[in-house]
Structure formats: C-alpha cells, structure tokens
C-alpha cells in the first residue's frame, strides 16, 4: 500500500488536516492564556515551518511539506487572502469611517504617522544590514514604515467586543483610528507595491491613480445595483446560491483586475468589500456565509504558508537578535505612542489613551499579509521577514497583558455608571407631608438641616390614601411647604400620588432616590401604651439611614437648640445638631440627661435620639418648654422597632444609663 502522501490530493488533505488540527489545538491553549486565536494560528504556522519542525525532524518536514508541493499551498493562501480582504472590507464600518474622517481625520493620522516615521528611521539602519542594493532604499523604507503602522482591525474589533468596550468612547476612538490608519496604509501600500513591480515611482502613482479611479467607478456603478440586490434579499428571504456565485465571481474579477494592473489581487477584493452597501443586510448575509469557510479553513493555510517561509534559524547571531529586539521595541513605541497621542488629541484621559495605543499595537493577520507581500516582491529579505513575523506575533500576544496593565478592569463599569453620578450631587432628603406639624415647621427644619453648600435635592412627598377628596387639601399642604421653603431659599420638588400603602411608598421612594434623610411629621410622641402610627412604623423599620420624626407645637424660628446627649456613640446626633446651629445661628446646648431638660429653660427645638433597643431616652411628650422635638432614630436591629417604648409617667423622664 502506498502512503497517502504520494498523491498530490492525498498530500494536500494531510497538510490541511495537520494545519487545521494544530491551529485549533494551540487555539485551546491560547484561549486559556486569554490570547486571540490569531496568535495560535500564526504560531502553528511557525511550528510547522523550518524554524521548529524543519529543525527538529527534517525528514518529517520534508515528507509533509515537500518543497516541490508548496505551490498548491501558495495558491490556496492567495485565495484565502483575497476572500479575507473582501471580508475585511465588508466588515469595515464605512459609515463610521465617514463620520470620523469628517471630524478627526488629522487626529487619527497621528496614530499612523508616528510609527511610520519611526519605522522609516529604523529602515536606515536595517537597510545596510538586511537588504541588497537591488532594492531601492526609498522602497525599503516605505515598506518597513508601513509594516510598523498596520493594525489588526478585525482582531481589535473582536477584542473590544468581548470586553464590552465597543460602545464606549474609548472603543469608538480605537476602532476609528485603526480603521482610518488601515485605509491610509492600504492606499500607501498599493502605491508601494506597484512601485516595487514597476520599478519607478511615476508609473506606480499612475497605476494607483488608475486603480483609485476604478474604485470610484465601482462605487458609482455597482452600489445602486448591489443595494437593489440587498433589498431583494432582505424582503425576499435570503440569498440564493446563484447570487452567492455572482458575488464570488465579482470578487475574483476585482482581484484579477488589480492584479493585472500590477498592484495585488487583495486590493481589488478589499475595495469591492467596502463598496457593498451596509443597509439591507446584504453585507451581513454575505459575511456570515463566507466567514466560516475563509476564517476556519482557508486563512490558517495562509498562516501556515507564512510559517513555512519563516526560518528563525536565519537569526543566527546576537546582532540579528538585537535587530529583532530593536524592531520590536521601536515598532511598539511608535504604535503605542502614536495611538496614545491620537487618543489624547481626541480628548481621552491619559490612561484610556494609553489603552488605545496598546490596542493599536496589536498587529495580527494584517501585518502578516503585508510582510508576505514584501517577501514576494523581494523587498524584504528572509531574515527580515523572520524578524517581522516574530515581532508581529509578540506584539499581538503582548496586547492582553499590556491591556490589563493599562486599563483597570473596572473601566467598563465606570463608563456605564456615569449617568447615575451625574444625576444627584448630594444625597437628597425627603420631607413627608402632611404633618400635623404643619408646613412652616417642616420647611424651617429642612432649611436648618440643609448642608452649607452641597445641598441635595429636597423632595416634598405627599401620599394620599383617601383618594380624590383628600387630594385637594393635600395639594394645599404641599403647596404651603414649597412656598415656605422657597421663602427660605430652598426649592422643594413636589412629589405626590395616591398611595394605598404610604409607609411602603415612603421607603420605596427614599430607596430609589438614594435619600439619606427622611423627615416625618407626627402629631405627638406616642403616649404610654399607645401604638405608633403604622406609616411611621413602616418608615422606622426600613433601612433608611436617618429618619427624623418632627413633633412640633409651634416652630416659628430656631434660636435655642437643646441636644439630649447621652452616649458617646451618638456623635452623629451632635453633628446633626451642629448642622442646625450652623445654619440657623442658634445657640446649642447639651443636656446630658432628660431629667435636666426640665431645668434647661425654654427651647425651640429639642434634638434627641431614639434608641429602641430597650433603652429609651426620649421624653414621652414634648418637653414643656420646647416648641418642637426632632427625634433621630438610630440603632439596630430595625426589626425591634415595634413601638416607642412606653415609659413610666408623662413627665419628662429618663432611664439613660450613664
């Protein structure tokens, strides 16, 4: 029995199986290491080439990839490139490109010019080392500059999508700069390639101009027809095989046209891809159909073919590795620096700008496409080609670690959460009316509690249980509160509705508004044995930070404030009282025990804390000489707050443990 490797078809099948299998196998590891798949595919190519397989097992390498049979793989990889570039063109967001071009073309170009210039400078040194005199220096410099400035747009878009960054400003800037850079780079590359083939710059520019004219012609002539086709597909239910074949023939013809012009087949298919209209689903349907075959089967062949031409052994001395390091460092500096500069000019903060730079440094498949062209044209020597393959692989693989270094993982969260922070400056306070306390007292207290300059919003919340009839008078009360607060320089925002469960609605509103202070009016401090108002009870049981219960007789002004201060842990009660004193200029006096209240003289406001864990320091009625009492509810657990603890008698009393 003869070996399957003996027939051309058998050999090809084995080659394809090995390439695909190894790419996918490495892909599994790449995913573990959070690397894009393209890293695995390029690495698989290098492994199968003379660098590793050829060096370790020359017989196996020769049997698997005999030198004479490489032409087939070359043809397949060319087809892969033509289809791949068609897909790249198809996926290119031309709409966004047009928008970006209008506003920030210059900014985006900074991301290209810096690496290009650095690469051209680097070429000065490399030319003497790695090139032959047959290659004109200008051509060599242009080519090295171009390889330095290319970005892997498809990989970039996928990586941003995976991290949910595409919709952020950072993502938009990164994709836009990459797209603008790449289009510019491809145009330049077209000129360079035709220059290399024609041998003189004048012819090259002429050819490129002709190609450009053809591109415009294609745009004008083909687009309406393609748009009609797209409409038919979107309304008539999908793409037929005939249409698919037609499109493929179009792609091949476009490639053929540019190839015969002396540029390269892939330019034609790329331009054709961009010409396809994005509306109507034609572009999407086509890309979906072509993507699997191209990306899974054909493109790995291209990577493998590149790998077969990469011989790392050519870097045999320290000098070669020094050059490799220099290309890597300078290329990365140029791309990261240029990208960051562009992003800074576009108005991103430094850290995000650095992230954009790192993203643009990812070279991926596009880089490989360019350097393969350079090798084919004889502009790049095999040694430089190997160096550039290593550089492309390294920068792409380094993107993820660098990205984690440059952008902390909460960057997405911050981008999302910004509307919330804009909404409120300081936590708002909610004033519940009605109150038996009356609107003036509530307004005065709200004024007294308001911070000096970082006022949160004040909401006047009026919940109306008894529907229509009560609604009218209730409006009046809310109106009064708004008027009184306005007289004190505060705007209270009205919020009233019919509620079947006012207690729950107060809590829910406080929760959704993020309120830290809720003021509730009460007719009286509950007398002995008397149950507390159910609404108040609900509010006290809620997890609202501060609930103030205002019991007022007549609160017209706040001049004298007594603080019933009993325990050191109530410093925040003191802070509350101090805030009132600061705001109103009232005299503040501390009283250590409730029994002293009676002796303390008249007061406008008594501030006291209610701790419902069994100890109560709240006077059961308003102190005789005070007009109002603000009870601040503290302590936990909240569940224990069934009712205010009844105390022995109706006179001011205390059981404060001191």
């Amino acid at each position: 029995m003869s070996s399957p490797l003996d027939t051309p078809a058998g050999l090809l099948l084995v080659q394809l199986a090995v390439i695909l299998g190894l790419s996918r196998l490495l892909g599994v590891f790449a995913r573990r290491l959070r690397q894009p798949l393209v890293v695995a595919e390029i690495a698989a190519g290098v492994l199968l080439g003379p660098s590793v397989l050829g060096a370790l097992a020359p017989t196996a390498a020769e049997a698997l990839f005999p030198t004479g049979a490489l032409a087939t793989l070359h043809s397949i990889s060319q087809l892969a490139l033509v289809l791949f570039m068609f897909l790249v063109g198809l996926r290119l967001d031309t709409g966004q490109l047009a928008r970006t071009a209008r506003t920030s073309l210059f900014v985006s170009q900074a991301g290209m010019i810096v690496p290009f210039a650095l690469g051209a400078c680097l070429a000065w040194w490399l030319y003497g080392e790695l090139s032959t005199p047959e290659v004109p220096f200008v051509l060599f410099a242009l080519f090295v500059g171009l390889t330095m400035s290319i970005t892997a747009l498809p990989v970039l878009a996928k990586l941003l999508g995976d991290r949910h960054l595409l919709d952020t400003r950072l993502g938009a800037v990164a994709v836009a700069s990459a797209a603008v850079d790449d289009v510019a780079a491809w145009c330049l590359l077209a000129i360079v390639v035709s220059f290399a083939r024609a041998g003189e710059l004048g012819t090259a520019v002429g050819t490129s101009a002709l190609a450009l004219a053809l591109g415009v012609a294609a745009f004008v002539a083909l687009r309406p027809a393609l748009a009609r086709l797209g409409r038919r597909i979107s309304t008539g239910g999908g793409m037929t095989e005939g249409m698919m074949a037609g499109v493929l023939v179009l792609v091949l013809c476009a490639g053929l046209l540019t190839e015969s012009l002396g540029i390269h087949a892939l330019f034609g298919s790329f331009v054709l891809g961009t010409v396809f209209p994005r509306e109507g689903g034609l572009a999407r349907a086509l890309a979906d159909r072509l993507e699997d075959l191209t990306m899974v089967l054909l493109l790995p062949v291209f990577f493998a073919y590149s790998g077969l031409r990469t011989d790392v052994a050519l870097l045999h001395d320290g000098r070669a590795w020094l050059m490799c390091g220099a290309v890597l460092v300078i290329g990365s500096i140029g791309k990261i620096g240029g990208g960051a500069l562009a992003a800074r000019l576009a108005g991103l903060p430094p850290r995000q700008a650095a992230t954009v730079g790192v993203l643009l440094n990812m070279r991926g498949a596009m880089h490989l496409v360019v350097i393969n062209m350079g090798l084919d044209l004889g502009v790049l020597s095999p040694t430089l080609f190997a160096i550039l393959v290593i550089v492309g692989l390294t920068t792409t693989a380094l993107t993820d670690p660098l990205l984690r270094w440059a952008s902390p993982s909460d960057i997405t969260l911050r981008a999302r959460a910004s509307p919330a922070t804009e909404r409120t400056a300081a936590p708002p306070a909610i004033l519940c009316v009605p109150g038996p306390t009356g609107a003036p007292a509530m307004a005065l207290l709200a004024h007294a509690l308001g911070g000096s300059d970082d006022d949160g919003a004040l909401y006047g919340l009026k919940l109306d249980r008894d529907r229509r009839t009560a609604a009218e008078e209730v409006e009046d009360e809310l109106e009064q509160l708004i008027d009184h607060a306005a007289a004190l320089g505060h705007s209270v925002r009205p919020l009233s509705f019919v509620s079947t469960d006012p207690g729950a609605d107060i809590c829910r509103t406080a929760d959704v508004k993020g309120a830290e202070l809720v003021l509730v009016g009460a007719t009286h401090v509950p007398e002995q044995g008397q149950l507390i108002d159910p609404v108040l009870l609900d509010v006290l049981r809620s997890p609202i930070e501060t609930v103030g219960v205002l019991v007022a007789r007549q609160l017209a002004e706040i001049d004298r404030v007594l603080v019933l201060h009993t325990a050191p842990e109530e410093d925040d009660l003191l802070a509350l009282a101090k805030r009132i004193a600061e705001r109103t200029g009232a005299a503040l006096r501390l009283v250590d025990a409730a029994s002293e209240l009676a002796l303390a003289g008249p007061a406008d406001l008594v501030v006291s804390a209610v701790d419902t864990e069994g100890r109560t320091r709240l006077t059961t009625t308003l102190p005789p000489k005070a007009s109002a009492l603000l009870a601040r509810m503290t302590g936990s657990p909240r569940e224990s707050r069934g009712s205010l603890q009844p105390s022995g008698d109706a006179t001011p009393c205390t059981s404060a443990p001191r």
Partner: protein
Amino acid sequence: MHVGASLKLLRMDAGLSLRDLARRIGVSSAYLSRVEHGIDPPPTAERLAAIARELDLPPALLVDAASRVSPFLNHYLETVPGASALFLEIARRRLNGHQLLRVHELIAQEFPLPEPARRAPPPGLAPLLSEERVVPRLRCAELGDALDLAAARLAPALETSATQLAVELHAAEQRASSHVGAGVAVARLHRASGPAVAALLTLSPPLAMGGGAALRVVVVLVSERSPSALALLAHVSRLAAHGLADAIATLDDPAWIVGRITELEMLR
C-alpha cells in the same frame, strides 16, 4: 398628536437607523426624518404597512396607531359601497369591546388573511400591569421623578434594585425621549432576561414637556428585546392615539385603571 414619535421609538427599538429604514421602504431619509419629527403628515396606510413589514409588526396595528384608519376605510367604502351598510349596522348597535371581539373572531375564521395568519395577537398592556405597579395622580416636577417611582414599583417583580433600574431608565430616556404624543410617554427597558412587566403612572397635574405637549401618562415597559416587545410598544402607542390619557387620567384607584385598560384593549 403625530405618529412620528412612535415610529421613531419603534425604529430605534428594532435597531434600525433612519437611513436603513428609509432605504428599505424606498423613501428618502429626509422624508422619514420629517415624519418622525411630525413635520410631514403621517405616511399613507400603504407606506405604514411597508414600515410594519420591515419592523415585523402587524400592519393593522401601525395603521391604527397612526390614526390612518379613516382614510383607509373611506377608500374601501368608495370601492365597495355595500360595506357602508354593514358598518352602519354595527354602529347603530353600539357594540362594545366584548361584542366586537366576537365579530372579529367570526371574520377571522370565515375570511382568514392569506399571509400573516400565523401571527399571534399582539400582547396587551393590562396583563403586564398589576395594582402595585400603577401609581394614580402623581404630581412631580420632572419626568425623572416619575421614572424613579416606576423603578421603585417595578423592582420587586424584577428582583433587582430600584436604584439600578432607575439608572437604566434614566439612561434610556437620555438617549431618546419616550414621549409618543397624546400625553403619553412609553419608556422601555430591554433586559437580557426576566419577566415582561409594566408600570403605569398618571400625572396630575400634567407635566409640561418641551414643545408645548403636556405629559399625562407614563408607561414603563420592561422586557427582553423581542418582536413582541416591539409589538407591545406599537400597541401602547395605539392606545395613546385612541385617548388612553383621557380614559384614565381622572381615576384614583389602581384597580379601576387596570380595569379600564383591559376594557380598552379588549379588541386588539
């Protein structure tokens, strides 16, 4: 009242750009933009049907939402004069929702439409509401307050925090106003998973918005992004066009409001 605002929201929820939709239905994007901003009159019934097809909505729903029924009917009555008598019969009997539903069933059974017969009836608003999620007679200073309250009422059903929900609602509102005209705003929130629920608030006094129109009803729809979510938005726009605000503005009891809406959408 113009249907443009509803069309805009429907288009955006369907994820289509202005140019995209215009191109698909074969009009200029400038024209579609003028329609969406209420500068041009609502499109013809035929064009609305084309839009409905692109958005995967029942055409009748959109035609009805745009109050384009009478021109359409008039045209029909001119071509088939005999039909007038039948409509008169119905009108003279003052058939209510229940009875019309029976007539509808009979017609659907006897004369099924050739193509969209497989379509399930569009979802209703009332089944998504519950009394806890209806806030009657809200007085507030800005739409944001109403959205906050809706979030507070919706949070338990969605098992999420009210604050988070409010942030999402505010962000959605910032992207595009949810005012669909006729004093009704329909805020939509598309979540990755979870039940479809709705909240409804009536505003009293009406909340003045930019452009002179005052807001009287705020509906908040939370659902997964799906064709039926789109149909629901179209359906609520239609309810708005047919005087939803007038019908429930004076009601004080959440149960009455849900009942009234059930009645309004009996035949959909």
